[in-house]
């Protein structure tokens, strides 16, 4: 099966200013490669500074790569212009970490959802509104939320709205950047289970970034462990959790109090 998305030796470097006229290069993402199959979840695990968010921006064409290729449904997209990228945008959407800053404070939730539907030309306003309500229902939000502003609803509800927004153009994949990290532990499950259901119903592929191994465990089939821009370990979830090779992976697993023997064979 051709992968939905492939990253091939993706590298992103930033130039840093140093005192005097010297410059230094910061390598935020260092030759990262992976394949994402349709309907599957790739978990990217790493802590702050690991480059996982930068990787996301590279993949989603929000920032240009320094080197490497990003292949979406067989087509190289890293060198496309913004205009050329536009028709492809609806295939890839993102869910952000901080629900409060991921919504424009001056727009209601309904307006924000309508904004994403610009990627679906040919829909008139009435149909867009219907879709807004349908989307809210799918993420189990009361339709009255469409008239509320971001600061008027809770973090968990906002995060669901963020998922609804990402689903608006009917994408093939979602990039989820720490979507549960800003939420209470007792609420995280609501979002994770919702994501599981949506994946089953719609065949969505996910790239799920998190430092929380417990959460990644529920969703991912494959894992990528990143540290300071580099992939230190990669493989099927059971393999990485069950027999971590790299010491950093081992430290992460210990820190998350995960016990090897408890990896469930069924998933």
């Amino acid at each position, binding site marked *: 099966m051709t992968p939905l998305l492939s990253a091939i030796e993706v590298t992103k470097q930033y130039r840093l200013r140093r005192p005097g006229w010297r410059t230094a290069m910061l390598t935020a993402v260092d030759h990262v490669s992976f394949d994402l199959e349709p309907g599957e979840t790739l978990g990217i695990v790493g*802590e702050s500074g690991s480059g996982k968010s930068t990787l996301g921006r590279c993949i989603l064409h929000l920032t240009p790569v320094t080197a490497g290729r990003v292949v979406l449904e067989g087509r190289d997209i890293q060198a496309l212009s913004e205009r050329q990228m536009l028709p492809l945008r609806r295939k890839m959407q993102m869910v952000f970490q901080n629900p409060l800053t991921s919504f424009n404070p001056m727009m209601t939730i309904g307006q924000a959802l309508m904004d994403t539907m610009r990627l679906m030309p040919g829909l008139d306003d009435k149909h867009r509104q219907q879709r807004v309500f349908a989307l809210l229902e799918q993420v189990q939000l009361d339709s009255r939320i469409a008239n509320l502003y971001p600061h008027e609803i809770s973090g*968990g509800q906002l995060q669901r709205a963020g998922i609804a927004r990402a689903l608006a153009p009917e994408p093939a994949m979602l990039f989820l950047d720490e979507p549960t990290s800003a939420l209470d532990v007792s609420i995280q*499950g*609501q979002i994770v*289970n919702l994501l599981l259901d949506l994946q089953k119903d719609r065949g969505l592929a996910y790239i799920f970034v998190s430092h929380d191994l417990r959460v990644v465990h529920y969703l991912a089939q494959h894992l990528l462990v990143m540290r300071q821009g580099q992939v230190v370990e990669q493989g099927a979830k059971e393999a990485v959790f069950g027999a971590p090779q790299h010491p950093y992976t081992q430290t992460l697993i210990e*820190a998350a109090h995960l016990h090897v023997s408890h990896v469930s064979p*069924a*998933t």
Partner: protein
Amino acid sequence: MPNSVPLLAIRDLRVDLHIERDVLHALRGVTLNVGRGDLMAVVGESGSGKTMTGLSVMRLLPASAQITDGQILFDGTDLTRLQESSIRPLRGKRIAMIFQNAQAALNPLVRVGDQIADVYTRHAGLSRQAARQKAVEAMQATGIPNASERARGYPHEFSGGMAQRAMIALALASSPELLIADEPTSGLDVTIQGQVITLIRDVVRRLNTTLVVISHDIGLVSTICNRIAVMYAGVVMENGTTARITSRPANPYTAALLRCVDTRPTERMPFIPGRVIDLRQKWPGCPFAPRCALAQQICHDQAPLPVEVEPGHVSLCHFAHQVFEQDGSASYDAAAVRN
């Protein structure tokens, strides 16, 4: 056997927070005892009031907050009755506090070593020279490598974990009787969190300081604390030893929370449905009732009273005994698996 008179006794503390025109009832009757030598964890999620409780003890509440009722007895003295001028000698000397963002707690314009030395000159009356020496020792004790060099550095030159250690050194420089740590490891890398929390335990043990750790991470604090108080929507739902609370909870909220952090795999990720009540409203019954799988009519109508299910283990629930008998987990399989 620690002294039976608690070092810190909070009795029915009520705090209101004024935000523009709304009044948030942030603390609705918090009762908590911390004995000398205890390593107490105050655990809760958003809206639980755990941070407010810590700030109340230090009398560091924002101007928009007001203590409307209750007492905070520190070594017998009611802190709520004291004037600011009487509190100041306590703060920093007998009761110290460390916060989540270490960088924000340190003065960016003063060298780290000097900030710590300041405490020694002020509270212990040492000379500059001696204080500086003590400061370096304190930094060494918190595991900062090359302490004498680092002491000359500024806060922005410290990494997150280092700055946290420096803050711990700073807080403990005056050998306080009580240390309140508000989310001391949040924001730190997962791999560092364990180190910092154990460091806190080791240092307070060595100085015989009583510790209160405020955290949302019950798993983390249970590695070092001997007692846990679980807070929800401004009240203490359950209070007891770590061992008993984690193995035999007597409160539905505690049981549900433990299920959420359990690392044993399940088909779907456990959670608690719904969300915290609106703190602007006063509820006649139990604040957890709207989300509780065991809730009956009485839970919505009447506020529960604290029930001692076994010595030293108190739960705020109409059905505390039943939850305790059922060992918590059985009744929660149903709730957890439900979507």
